[in-house]
């Protein structure tokens, strides 16, 4: 998980999905298993701020005045 994968939680989820089968494999090194689990938890943790931001934006964008409109690509009709 190099820093270039920062902000790419989906990639971590993919990583988890691909390597998920190895969690059951007893011959697999526990270090790897640990990292597989890390990747899943890391992905979830990374996605949380995103969701927070998304919900925040959806509900509050109008109250942000100019800033809200500047960062919005799509402004619903009638606003």
């Amino acid at each position: 998980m190099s820093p270039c994968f920062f902000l790419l939680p989906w990639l971590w989820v993919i990583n988890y999905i691909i390597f998920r089968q190895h969690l059951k494999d007893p011959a697999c090194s526990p270090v790897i298993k640990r990292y597989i689990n890390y990747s899943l938890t890391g992905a979830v943790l990374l996605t949380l701020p995103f969701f927070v931001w998304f919900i925040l934006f959806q509900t509050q964008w109008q109250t942000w005045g100019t800033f809200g409109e500047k960062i919005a690509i799509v402004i619903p009709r009638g606003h």
Partner: protein
Amino acid sequence: MADPPGAGDPLAGRRPVHPTGQGEVLYDDLSFEGIGAAINNSRLGPGPPADPRVVPLSEYTASEDPLSGPMPGAAESADMQQPSPTDSSGQDPGYGGTVDSTDQLFVAPLVLDDEEDPGQTQPGEEPGADGGDGGGGGGMTVEDVRHYVRQIDHIFRPVLICMCLVIWWVKVEAVMRADTDGMRLFGFSTVETGDNIGGFIIDAIIIISAVIIMTIILAVMFWFGLFKIIFGYLIFSTGVLLGGMGALFAISQSLALNIPMDYITIVFAAVNFAVGGLVLVFYCSHLRLQQAYLTVMSALLAWSLTRINEITTWVLLGLLVIWDIIAVLTPCGPLKLLIAASRRHQKDIPALLYSVTMVWFMAHDPEHGILGGGKSSDASPVDSSDEVLAPVRTGGRHGGNGGGRRRQSTPPRGALLTDEGVELHDLTGPVPASPEHAPASEGDLRSGTEAEAADVDPHLADADPDAADTGAQEDEDAPPAEAKARDGLKLGLGDFVFYSVLLGRAALSDWTTTVTCLVAVSAGLMSTIFLLAFFRRALPALPISLVLGIIFFFVTRAVITPFVLEHVSGVVGL
């Protein structure tokens, strides 16, 4: 479909129990076995002599399958391979005790030169190679039928999903669709008359020319071995498509659905989506995810292509039909160049293909290299959409040397391989490369042109295990037991795209048109697969479907829709 184990007759309970002599055809049983038996029985003359190398399919059980087990894909295929076991003598008591080899469902190991590994004969699902297909060539065995039907299911599902995705997306925004229909794609002049039909046609010609040129350029680059450029281009265009087109798509849908969207969200989602897609398609893989990505990618490209003008669309599709036929079926098409180049470099043709096979594929036998790709290293051409070996394997693309020479020249390999296949496998030298699809990419419109190249060949090629598993080291340790069937239909992503383009355009009309075109394109695809089984060579996937689709579109719009409108009131969506 399998009978309970222990039933002596695989067809027991499925057809009337009366001995069938040669020549008697049973039509009362429409199961696979029944039809197969009918086909087999209707052949005149005795079947092939019992071949000691031939292992009845019944003796192959899922437990022998080295790849069966926790692997989802393998389980699925293992299920489908097994008919109920017959008695090991190979005789079928249901037939009145006659040893009639045509009644059996044989799987013969494809041993071309000699009994390479009689003990290791992998009954896998290599069907029909026993020569029992009534003397080769045009005959169809039970196994062929089975195989093809399975493949149809595998290949049709993603196509259907792609088409439905496009229809859905187009319908969502059909109401608020900006009227881009009056705009030319490449029109730089400011003089826009109302009905610029000639201009639209010129647009279509420009697009198809770009397709042709890109195909030729890629073929030439492949011929000269400029793999890095090709792969760089593929990766770049896929990334741009996934990221850029994905972002545009999200924005457009948000517009249609009245959802506010901000830059941060879009960028975050698009980058994630794009990078994930690139990794899955070009690097490691997980079968389902990869297939999902390829399907979604095709749908995205097709969705974006529905923006072009209607006249341009139809002319483009018509020209594509012609180009597809030319490219695949005529000797002057780029396909020959690609195959020759592939053979020369002993690499697979780099392309974006949808493959129905599994991740745990055996790296193909190095000698054959069809799909095994070459022995060369880093620049290994990736059949990017094919599964890679499971990451645990250290890049082993070359599996079983023992398990190697098998199953060649079977009808299911049909398509491109059969013609080339036999001669390829006769070479014992270094791998003749696999004649695969033309390079294709799912780039944007311009590079979508290579997509055309891909759509050119829906070969029934063996599935290719080598995908990106790494560039390459040949891993001779790949266990020889990984002889999973490498057979699988492959369909270029360009086919997905253009089917969906037609349907996207139909979706802009009413629902009746949409559904009839959907049915038409699906029927065309099925016919193409059937013809594939029949002719056993690479066939263009576009012509039949697109022609049927176009015909149905115009006929429906002209005839059926007014009829329905006249007689039905309050129909939603019409």
